[in-house]
């Protein structure tokens, strides 16, 4: 208990850490707000600059950027109708109509306060649930970890809005990339094609920066001529009455956010869209229709996407399975610092878990502070021309990829994966499963081999174990369900069950 408290208070007791969380949150608000700069990209570039730091300062800065960045996207969504981040797509639907009525200040104020509430609910659930999940996870067998890794990769593919087949392809590609190099157990060469350069494997940081940084910068070249729109800002801090009125919806959508965030591979994007959909269904008499400036249309996605931040840390800290792309990168950061996220981390180093909770609380408070101030300065900064921004993103990506190992090879990998990721984006292949696959490749491979060796190489015994262990069975059924739920048979069955008349007509 004392260790937990000490861990939680670390960030408050060291001015340097406090400053880094504040700096990260401030930068995150702007990174998230500038279209073309995503939080995932920023954190993936940042990891290479902070890997020589101590773990606490590095994590402080990343958490600040994450929390600020998830919120920051709403600003440009409201002011310019350009969601700065994917998690702000739904915010633009009602935020921009409000700005067009001259209510940009009110909209920004409400989104800030609701993001703050959502953020706190997410952190509270993380603090309460993670130790319980972690205790439970201690009973996991190697086959459960293997199934969990498969489930995580599949969930990313199925819950992202693209095709499941492309999602599975992307996940398998990620595992394959993660397998390149010498096998750590037998030292056999895997996918090296007799090139010495491939024996050490491919740096996952180079893959991440390429996929998220360079491909996004190349994508932004399509929008380079889009001009910025100037805005007027009015009253910002919302009244207590407004907050009270929307608190029930805010709490409901916080629950959606934290649940969706906790599912491996989902995160704020999907949480915000689902929360928006929920708000549309439960709000009986909005003051304005949805899509024309309904306050509920701002409250729901903004609460949910920030609640998803706390949620995303739950599987990351308890199982070593990232909740979303940013936590996938953070797992990488923890690995680099010699830490091994998972149930043992919670037991061996509970101070690290509580430090992360403390840093999230601090970042959430900074987000409220920066969210309600400096909006005029903000409107100037986001008007930075893309003609300068895009080359700078590319330059930072190169510096980031090189800095990890001082290796020019990593720069080539990064460029290669950047170009590849650009085509994947255009043709509907999700990028998240690739990164998740790379990260989880080792977990999957090691645990499969441990599991099958313990069953004396007998596949029948392995499946018997899966079917007789309740946990393995639940995980296995979940994997099967994800597959089945994406098939036409399932869609037909669902249609027959819920609207038999229409199905019969068809």
């Amino acid at each position: 208990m004392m260790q937990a408290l000490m861990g939680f208070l670390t960030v408050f007791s060291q001015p340097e850490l406090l400053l880094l969380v504040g700096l990260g949150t401030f930068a995150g608000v702007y990174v998230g707000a500038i279209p073309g700069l995503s939080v995932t990209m920023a954190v993936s570039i940042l990891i290479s600059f902070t890997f020589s730091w101590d773990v606490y300062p590095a994590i402080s800065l990343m958490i600040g950027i994450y929390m600020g960045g998830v919120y920051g996207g709403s600003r440009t969504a409201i002011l310019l109708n350009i969601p700065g981040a994917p998690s702000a797509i739904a915010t633009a639907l009602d935020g921009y109509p409000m700005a067009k009525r001259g209510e940009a200040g009110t909209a920004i104020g409400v989104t800030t306060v609701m993001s703050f509430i959502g953020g706190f609910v997410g952190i509270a659930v993380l603090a309460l649930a993670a130790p319980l999940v972690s205790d439970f996870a201690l009973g996991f067998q190697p086959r459960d970890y293997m199934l969990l890794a498969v489930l995580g990769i599949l969930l990313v593919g199925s819950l992202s809005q693209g095709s499941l087949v492309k999602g599975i392809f992307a996940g398998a590609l990620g595992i394959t990339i993660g397998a390149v190099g010498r096998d750590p157990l037998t030292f056999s060469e895997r996918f090296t094609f007799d090139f010495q350069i491939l024996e050490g494997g491919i740096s996952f940081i180079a893959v991440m920066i390429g996929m998220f940084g360079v491909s996004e910068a190349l994508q932004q070249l399509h929008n380079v001529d889009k001009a910025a729109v100037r805005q007027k800002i009015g009253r910002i801090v919302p009244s207590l009455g407004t907050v009270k009125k929307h608190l029930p919806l805010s709490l409901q959508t916080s629950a959606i956010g934290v649940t969706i965030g906790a599912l491996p591979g989902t995160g704020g994007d999907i949480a915000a869209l689902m929360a928006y959909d929920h708000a549309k269904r439960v709000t009986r008499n909005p003051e304005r229709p949805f899509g024309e400036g309904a306050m509920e249309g701002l409250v729901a996605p903004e609460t949910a996407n920030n609640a998803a931040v706390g949620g995303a840390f739950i599987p990351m800290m308890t199982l070593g399975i990232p909740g979303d792309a940013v936590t996938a990168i953070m797992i990488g950061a923890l690995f680099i610092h010699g830490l091994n996220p998972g149930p043992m981390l919670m037991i061996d180093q509970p101070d690290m878990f509580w430090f992360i909770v403390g840093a999230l609380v601090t970042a959430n408070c900074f987000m409220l502070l920066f969210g309600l101030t400096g909006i005029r300065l903000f409107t100037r900064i986001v008007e930075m021309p893309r003609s300068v921004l895009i080359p700078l993103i590319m330059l930072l990506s190169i510096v980031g990829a090189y800095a990890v190992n001082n290796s020019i090879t990593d720069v080539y990998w990064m460029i290669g994966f950047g170009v590849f990721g650009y085509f994947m984006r255009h043709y509907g292949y999700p990028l998240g499963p690739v990164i998740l696959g790379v990260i989880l490749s080792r977990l999957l491979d090691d645990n499969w081999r441990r599991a099958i060796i313990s069953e004396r190489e007998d596949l029948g015994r392995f499946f018997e174990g899966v079917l007789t262990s309740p946990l393995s069975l639940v995980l296995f059924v979940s994997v099967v369900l994800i597959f089945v739920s994406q098939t036409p048979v399932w869609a037909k069955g669902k249609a027959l069950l819920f609207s038999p008349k229409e199905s019969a007509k068809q």
Partner: protein
Amino acid sequence: MQHIETEHHDGTSDATPGGYGNRRRPGELAFGALMLAASLGLLWSAYGISGFEALSAPGTVPMATALVMVVTAAIVVAKTARLPLVPNETLARDIVPATVLVFIAFLIAYGLLLKPLGFIPTSALFLIAAVRILSRRNWTWTLLVSLGSLAVVWLVFRIVFTVLMPSGIVPEAEFIQVFRNLFNGGGA
């Protein structure tokens, strides 16, 4: 869940990848075919690791994942081939316009020049060329913005984060030492 139109056919989000559900973008079939060919190559390579030696052999998971890639890539190709092309889209305009090709070439050139020329000259060349092409502004503006940005990047990453980049033809370490001596001298 009700579908919310986000117009993300270009895939600007991890959660909403691009493409169209019921139409084929220019080059999509070729990309799928390339993925299938690469997957087959990887499956062959994975088989070469340890064959069917044992279920716990080092090649088992690579073989399984490469097989998954082959199957899914084949499904994607078969599905894509049946779809009609998106009207009014061309490969050269909507997928790989000249600007994208130019920037890919710039990135490769940057990678090739980074070691021999060094970080500062290569980055200066890259930024000047990139900003000039994208902004279409005059040379004074281009040079001011590019070199100003480079100075900020260099100060932040080289001095604050102490990231070591190739110095190449610029005696960077000597410059930094001169400045350090100046400040030390000033402070003494």
